[in-house]
Each structure stands twice: as C-alpha cells, then as structure tokens.
C-alpha cells in the first residue's frame, strides 16, 4: 500500500486558486521532489500532505499508522534565545540521549550536541534540523527546502545525505526543491508544480517536458556562466572522477 495517495486536491485562499486537481502517490522508500516557481503552491501542498492544512477539497489517503518527520521551510531558530542543539532536539517531546545522538550522528553533526544553535552555520543548522526530523524514525520524511541558507557545495552534500538517510532507513522522502538538476540523480519521482501538476514522473522525462521547459528552461539558459551544473565532486588536486564534460552534458539545461 502506498504511504500517501492524493485525489483531486483543490485548495484556494479566498478567490485565489493555490492548487487545483492534484493527484499523485508517494510509495515507500521513494524520493519524491516537488519543484515549481515561487507561489506555485509547493508549501501549501506539503502542508496538506502532512495534515497541517485541512481546509482543502479532495482527498488525502494516508497509510494507517503513518509517521511523518517534517522540516518546515525557513525554520529559523530565534537568535535571541540561548539554546543548545541538545535542547532543540527535545524541544516538543521527550527523547532519550541515545536516540538523540544517533539522529545527530546520521546527519554528521553529533559533535555539535552542546553548541549554542545560534553559533552554527546555515549548513550545520539544516543538518541539526534534519536530525530532528528523523528522530522518531518516520515512515515519511517531509523536507520543505532543506537546503535553504546552504551554499551550492553544501547543497549537493545535503542531497547526498538525504539519499543516504533513505538508503539507510528505507523511509520515503517528499521534498521541495527549487533546482531539479541538483536533485536529479537522487530522485525517483518529480512533481513539477505550478498550481496544477504540469508534469510528473522520472526526472529524465520531466526535464524534457515542454511545460517544465516553459517554466524553467529560459531561466537556466539566461545565466550564461552556468554552462553546466556540478554533478560531480572534485578531489583536492582539482581532478575528478566520473566527469563527462561533453556536449550532451553542457546542454542538459535545455
């Protein structure tokens, strides 16, 4: 049984349509990425899927007993408060020290346990937030822009980490991202959203879909410097494994 099935979701605020006619399925163990321009309704969709928003038409069927870990968008931690990573982890629920450390180890920030949250970098903060989200060993991990405030290199690492978490725990992941190319290789299903589902499916097919190109194609082309996206990691001497700098690769922005 799929974890979540949505049927004909319509959502409007006042007279403004935010979402219309959304149908998709989240399967266990799969990474699903929602992409779309600003105001496309990405966060609204996420809120409906996890049950934070119930003011919509249509149906969301969740597997009975489904547990969800959630990393909200722009989850800025109030800098006026003194709070350690440890306390932040157990902010709204009781957690054993062992569970807490395990989660932090998985996201590679166990050493920050007793640090003040406001002293962390953007990347470290998001890793701590990710650790919070996986604390209860959820079936479904929902990440709304998990790389907000993280630089480009950190972004790639973050997506790799998210894929690792999926591989390690077998949980399904639903995440919102603004850049398909960075998440491409790690994603099983892409939902391209602009109030309605423009297209969905495997990343390779979505990236060639005319509606996707209409939304994202022009923009990617207009940034002349960005002739290719970094889909590989350089070793320290500047060389790299598995680089294919050929015409096909430079062209994939469409």
């Amino acid at each position, binding site marked *: 049984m799929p974890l979540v099935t949505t049927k004909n979701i319509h959502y409007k605020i006042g007279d403004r349509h935010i979402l219309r006619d959304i149908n998709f399925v989240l399967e266990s163990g799969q990474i699903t990425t929602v992409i779309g321009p600003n105001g496309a309704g990405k966060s609204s969709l996420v809120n409906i899927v*996890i049950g934070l928003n119930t003011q919509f038409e249509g149906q969301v069927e969740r597997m009975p007993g489904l547990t969800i870990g959630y990393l*909200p968008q722009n989850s*800025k*931690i*109030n800098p006026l*408060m*003194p*709070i350690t990573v440890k306390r932040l982890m157990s*902010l*709204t629920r009781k957690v054993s020290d062992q569970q807490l450390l395990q989660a932090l180890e998985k996201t590679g920030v166990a050493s920050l346990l007793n640090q003040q949250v406001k002293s962390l970098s953007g990347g470290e903060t998001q890793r701590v937030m990710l650790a919070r989200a996986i604390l209860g060993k959820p079936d479904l991990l929902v990440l709304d822009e998990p790389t907000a405030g993280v630089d480009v290199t950190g972004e790639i690492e973050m997506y790799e980490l998210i894929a690792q978490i999926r591989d390690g725990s077998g949980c399904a992941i639903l995440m919102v991202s603004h850049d398909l190319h960075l998440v491409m290789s790690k994603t099983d299903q892409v939902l391209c959203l602009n109030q309605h589902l423009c297209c969905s499916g495997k990343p390779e097919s979505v990236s060639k879909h005319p509606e996707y190109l209409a939304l994202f194609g022009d923009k990617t082309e207009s940034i002349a410097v960005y002739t290719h996206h970094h889909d590989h990691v350089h070793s320290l001497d500047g060389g790299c494994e598995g680089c294919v700098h050929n015409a096909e690769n430079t062209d994939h922005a469409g």
Partner: protein
Amino acid sequence: MLDDFLIRSLLAGALMVLVAAPMGCLMVWQRLAFLADTLGHASVLGVALGLMMSLHPMVGVLIVILVIMLIVSQSMGGKPVAMSESVLAIISHTGLAAGILLLSLTGAANISLEAILFGDLLATSMSDLGFIALTVFILLFLLWQHWTSFVAVSVSPEIAQAEGIPVQKVQFILYLMIALLIAVMMKVMGVLLIGAMLVIPVNAARVFSRGPEQMMVISLFFGLMSLLSGMFMSWQYDLQTGPAIVVMAAVWLLLSLFIKKLNKTLT
C-alpha cells in the same frame, strides 16, 4: 526590628520578581518588550477610568489593557511582534496623556500622580498584597502548565506549529498573562518603570545563559538582587523605591557585562 509595612512591600516585590523573571524572558525572546512599555503607559488611562467608575484601579487597568491587547492582536492576526513601532508608540502616548487628563478632571485628590508613574512599593496594603499574591499564583500556574509550548513557540513558531502545538492559542494565553502581569506590576513599579523590571534583569541573565530555563533562573537571581539592593538604597538614602530598584537593576546589568568581558580577556 522590621516594620510591618517593610515586610509587606518586600513580599510584594519578591512575588513580582518571581513572576517577572519567566515572563520577562518570554517577552524578550518574542520581542514584546516594547509592548510591555506601551501597555504600562496606557494603564494610566485604566487607573483613571477605574477611579471614575469607582472600581479598584487594578481592575480598571486590566480592562483597558485587555481591550488594547485584543485590538492589537486582532489587527495583526495574533502577532503583536509584527506591529509597527509607531502604532505602539501612538497607543502608549495617547493612553498616558488621556489618562493624566482624566485623572485631573476627576479631581481625585487622594491619588498621587507620582505613585501612579513610579509606583509605591512601600505603601503596599494588605489587600494589595492579597491581589498580587493571587495574580502571581495564577501566572505561575499558567507558566508551569504551558512552559514547553511557550518555549517552543519562542524558538520557532513554524516548528511548534508543525509539531502539533496550537500556536495561536498558546500566544493568546501569553498575551492575557502579559495583561494580568502589567496590571499587578503597576502598583509596585509604576507605569513608567514596568518595562524596566521585565527587561533589565533578563538581559543581565542572557550574558551567562546556555539554555532557556537557566536564563529564567539567572533572571530571577538578578531580579531579586535588584529588588533587595534597590530597597536598601531607598531605605538608606530616602529615595523613591521604584526608581531605586530600576537603577540598581541597571547596575547589576553593567556588572554582569563587565564580568563577562573580564572572563573573556582572562581566558
């Protein structure tokens, strides 16, 4: 041998500090310090209205503050934080000015403007003490009951919301508590100095704190020290009690900043 009135005022002051520490922390974390000032100033209007309707001044204050809080939180979808400074300033000064005019119109000879503005801790009566004790007990109970939610909402309303805390309801309770707190503190600190007692000890505590609860406990310490040293100065040099307490609070703040700096240069 301590006189009776001194014990009464010490008790009233200590009760106030006891609840001002956690409330002050929450207000500083949520950037509501300026709101406390506004409500404090506007409560002059409450005193005046209370006298005109021959109610207890604290009841008048409570009514006026509740009305302001309702207007404020309604006009901003439950978020006084987002309210512009000028709106708060307008409410603050209008309330103060209108209150003073009303007071002089009612010709209430038995009320001293100075006591309203700067408080009169030493004149704490038995009924005042009872009112303060009751209010403080209610506030402490609510704090104890909702502390986890209050802290979570202060850390991040988004996360709190996502993890099942009814943020709007929690904030509404907090605003009601602030209204109650201001009404009870007015008698002790006076309308002009309420904000100081909520903000200064908390900021002295921030210097040494690594967690929210620790900050609250250290605020309590600084609040008590300010109260005791302020009352001592007032007793010794025949100074007004409220202002003496606030000045001593500022001295403790400077001291804590100095110690912090010293620690840094030494290590």
